[in-house]
């Protein structure tokens, strides 16, 4: 059976879902269930008694087979991300941490230096570390050597819906990596998720494209199917490109021709 291995965790679904930006907790839970995902990201926030019903830990922890991956969103430095990881592990009990460090809210680009430092420390503390990174093959390799269980290069800016604008660099990361490469951020449509899988990504992480769809649960299913199709195509062997036409029907012995 084709499975995704992240550290010592085995997943059969290759779609990782983010839980932000949904219109309601109910809509998010419906999408999570419909997608069949086994790994979802969540974020740490200060408790607000006026929004107590927004706590997601309770409802998500009741979905069978689902593992939570807290992120360190909001952290601008390695120190803040490490602190968020410690608190998140205490709260969730999950070994996973998505290291996400972006100091500039205008573009949300991940800080490679702080990310590397945070990952190095968190790996040494036993976390299963999955860093969100710029599509940089050198950084990806350094993070693999540091012991991360995957690298998650961005397809394009968070929430932008600009798709796989980093495809060329992601291809190099895939070629060079011995750990799963997961495109995270920027995907807008299932065809882009399928393309990422055809390229050789081991999984994709999607949030906004599902959360802001008119029917999030239906969109989650569409992404799940696209991810499966892309994976299957990759494994089946995609034909090479040719510079000219190559006939699929015989061109000789046709009617009056010799």
């Amino acid at each position, binding site marked *: 059976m084709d499975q995704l291995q992240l550290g010592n965790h085995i997943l059969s679904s290759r779609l990782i879902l983010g839980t932000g*930006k949904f219109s309601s907790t109910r809509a998010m839970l419906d999408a999570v269930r419909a997608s069949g995902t086994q790994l979802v990201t969540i974020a740490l926030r200060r408790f607000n008694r006026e929004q107590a019903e927004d706590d997601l830990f309770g409802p998500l922890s009741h979905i069978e087979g689902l593992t939570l991956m807290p992120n360190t969103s909001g952290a601008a430095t390695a120190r803040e991300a490490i602190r968020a990881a410690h608190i998140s592990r205490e709260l969730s009990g999950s070994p996973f941490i998505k290291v996400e460090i972006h100091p500039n809210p205008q573009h949300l680009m991940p800080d490679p230096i702080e990310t590397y430092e945070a990952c190095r420390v968190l790996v040494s503390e036993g976390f299963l570390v999955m860093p969100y990174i710029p599509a940089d093959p050198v950084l990806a390799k350094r993070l693999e050597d540091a012991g991360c269980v995957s690298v998650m290069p961005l397809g394009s800016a968070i929430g932008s819906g600009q798709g796989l604008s980093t495809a060329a660099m992601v291809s190099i990361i895939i070629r060079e990596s011995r750990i799963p490469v997961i495109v995270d951020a920027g995907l807008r449509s299932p065809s882009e998720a399928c393309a990422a899988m055809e390229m050789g990504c081991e999984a994709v992480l999607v949030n906004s494209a599902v959360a802001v769809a008119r029917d999030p649960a239906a969109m989650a299913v569409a992404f799940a199917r696209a991810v499966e199709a892309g994976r299957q195509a990759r494994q089946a062997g995609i034909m090479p490109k040719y510079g000219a036409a190559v006939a699929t029907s015989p061109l000789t012995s046709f009617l009056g021709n010799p």
Partner: protein
Amino acid sequence: MPQIRIELNGRQREIPEGSTIQELLSIEGAERQQVAVVVNERIIRPDGRAACILRQDDRVELLVFAGGG
């Protein structure tokens, strides 16, 4: 009852002197859900909250999980 001043999630707050973290969670309506508690940058686990008495000028963070990508 004498009050002490603490910083709760970045805001000044007065609570009864001698309050424990468990009592603070009850005052805040946060006792029924999974909440992480950090006092002066130290994580306080659930089994230590009933015995942990808050002091003047303690910096307390109550954190929960919300949606995120």
